[in-house]
């Protein structure tokens, strides 16, 4: 793959960074939007930085549209590469106004392909031009950063998780701009993300990365993401033995701060191995769906053979009702059964979709071994909680410590009984309805007025 081809981006980087080993080879079309997807720490940002020339791997090759940027004996410095780079944090120059930020990389010569007015219009920046970056919101800053990158007339736009540092409302504010951008420009874009929902909205091509390697590449929808492997032994089997170790191992993933979340909105059903929590949750979710509640997420149903022995399991996306996948039966009577990689990815999408739809309750069937070890649906659980949506999940008793570490001790523990779950939900949903009614009442006079006008 170490050859320069016109119309393609060819790159290969190999080397060690600290104790991280990167060995990535890419060959992508130099058109449309290509998403590089993978869990945090898989090396996707490093690949983008290598392509930009911000990071130099001794053993590297990079050619874009037939032009060699790096090989064994040459390395084009960053400022000679026709790229636009949007960083995770907007990184505007604080000493320059928005207008001068935008024009920083714009060539002096006229007749540029991407015109100033067009970018200002596309990203809705007209009202911000004379402001200082200090006086912009997070979303506005990121829009200016995107505009600034575009105005440098790049031949390749690299976007390194441009939305990851933004909250959900701001993300939703920027996403339409990004979609418009990708629709209007003929510029090839490399979009780095760990958010499948984001990628599904505009990527044409997908590259999957894991632990410094490219594990798949192809048109979107021909690929399924593979969940992260590794650090499988953090909480291991959540065994209580680890509690006796004075200095408990910390999660590798970032500690999440849920302190401003209403603790009543997070509930964990504590169950023991003999409890059939899957069926309990699935039945409860089904009841709610039937009565017209807006809920989303994933539950599991066990598949049993004629003799009542579990032979497999099926996950269901609560919003679409779709059966996600059936995990491979482990043989008659096997109780442990995990979602396979593809199923897990679909479950993740199901939860993300529910969060995006702002449902009234997200059900995630389990926080167990995998989630405790920073895998599985852990990130999606965190997203749902952080979004302030009520979350119901089930936690095996042996994983209670890991759960408390994860949530920072917030949330309600429920007994593994239908009545306990229903009690929690009725209490919470009636309070939510009251709050909503109060909000509506506050808006009511305005609504009445408009009604009169119409009448």
């Amino acid at each position, binding site marked *: 793959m170490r050859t320069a081809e016109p119309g393609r981006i060819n790159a290969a980087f190999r080397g060690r960074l600290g104790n991280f080993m990167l060995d990535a080879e890419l060959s992508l079309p130099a058109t449309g939007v290509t998403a590089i997807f993978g869990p945090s720490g898989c090396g996707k940002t490093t690949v983008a930085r290598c392509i930009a020339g911000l990071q130099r791997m001794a053993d590297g090759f990079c050619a874009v549209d037939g032009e060699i940027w790096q090989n064994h004996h040459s390395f084009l410095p960053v*400022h000679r590469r026709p*790229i636009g780079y949007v*960083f995770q944090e907007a990184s505007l*120059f604080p000493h320059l106004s928005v207008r001068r930020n935008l024009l*920083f990389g714009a060539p002096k010569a006229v007749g540029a392909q991407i015109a100033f007015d067009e970018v200002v219009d596309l990203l809705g920046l007209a009202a911000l031009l004379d402001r200082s970056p200090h006086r912009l919101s997070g979303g506005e800053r990121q829009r200016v950063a995107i505009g600034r990158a575009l105005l440098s007339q790049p031949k390749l736009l690299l976007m390194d998780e441009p939305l990851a540092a933004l909250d959900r409302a701001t993300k939703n504010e920027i996403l339409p701009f990004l979609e418009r951008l990708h629709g209007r420009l003929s510029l090839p874009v490399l979009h780095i993300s760990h958010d499948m929902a984001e990628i599904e909205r505009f990527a044409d091509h997908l590259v999957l990365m894991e632990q410094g390697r490219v594990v798949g590449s192809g048109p979107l929808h021909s690929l399924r993401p593979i969940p992260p492997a590794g650090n499988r032994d953090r909480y291991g089997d959540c065994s209580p033995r680890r509690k006796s170790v004075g200095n408990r191992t910390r999660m590798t993933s970032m500690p999440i701060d849920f302190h401003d979340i209403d603790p009543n909105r997070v509930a964990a059903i504590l169950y023991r191995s003999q409890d059939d929590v899957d069926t309990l949750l699935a039945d409860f979710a089904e009841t709610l769906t039937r009565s017209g509640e807006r809920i989303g997420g994933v539950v599991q149903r066990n598949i049993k053979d004629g003799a009542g022995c579990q032979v497999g399991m099926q996950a269901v996306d609560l919003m679409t009702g779709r059966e996600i996948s059936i995990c491979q039966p482990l043989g008659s009577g096997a109780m442990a059964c995990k979602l396979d990689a593809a199923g897990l990815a679909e479950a993740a999408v199901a939860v993300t979709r529910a969060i995006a739809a702002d449902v009234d309750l997200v059900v995630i069937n389990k926080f167990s071994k995998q989630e405790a070890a920073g895998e599985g649906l852990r990130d999606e659980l965190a997203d749902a909680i952080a979004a302030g949506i009520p979350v119901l999940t089930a936690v095996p008793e042996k994983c209670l410590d890991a759960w408390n570490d994860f949530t920072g001790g917030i949330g309600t523990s429920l007994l593994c009984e239908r009545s306990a779950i229903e009690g929690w939900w009725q209490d919470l949903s009636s309070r939510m309805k009251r709050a909503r009614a109060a909000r509506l009442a506050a808006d009511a006079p305005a609504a009445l007025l408009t009604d009169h006008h119409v009448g």
Partner: protein
Amino acid sequence: MEIWSPEIRQSVLLTVELATISTAILLVLATPLAWWLAHAKGWWTEIAASIIALPLVLPPTVLGFYLLVMLGPDGPGGWIASFWGGRTLAFTFEGLVIGSVVYSMPFVVQPIRNAFSATGERPLEVAATLRASPWRTFWTVAVPLARPGFLTGAVLGFAHTVGEFGLVLMIGGNIPGRTKVLSVAIFDYVETSRWREASILAGFMVIFAFAVILTMTLVDKRAARAAA
């Protein structure tokens, strides 16, 4: 008897001249040095930083002694002076400038280095991805963002040059019109019991120091407002 006697005026002007020239040279030398210290990685950077910081802890007389040897006819100073037919740099205005630069270097390098470090790599990376050469990045991004550091460095460098005494006495002596700066003059007046002149000069120093700091602060505030 006038306050502004020729003798006093001479030492004031000499001091301002010395401090201005030294500060200018300090900024020119300290900027690349601070840049290098802020960006280079390796054990030798800290060794270099320690050498630059030596005047902070060395007694001025010790520093002055070594400088006197170096500037004298048998040291490199004598060799340099021979270019314009001189015999030595000791007890000359040029020698004082060299001494002041060495003495005040840490006070200028440190704030600028800190300001460069505080800026971090990201703005420089951003500039590079926007096609700015390293030279342009330095002047349009790194320097403006490190402005408070430059200001602090310049004020400290200037003030330290104005106020140094031990070092000046060691390498400059007390030659009116050539090396007799304010601080030495005040010492002289006190020695000879001319309290009136001493208090005029001392008062001038206090007012001057206050004015410098106030002006710099106001200039910085205005610049910050203009940028915002």
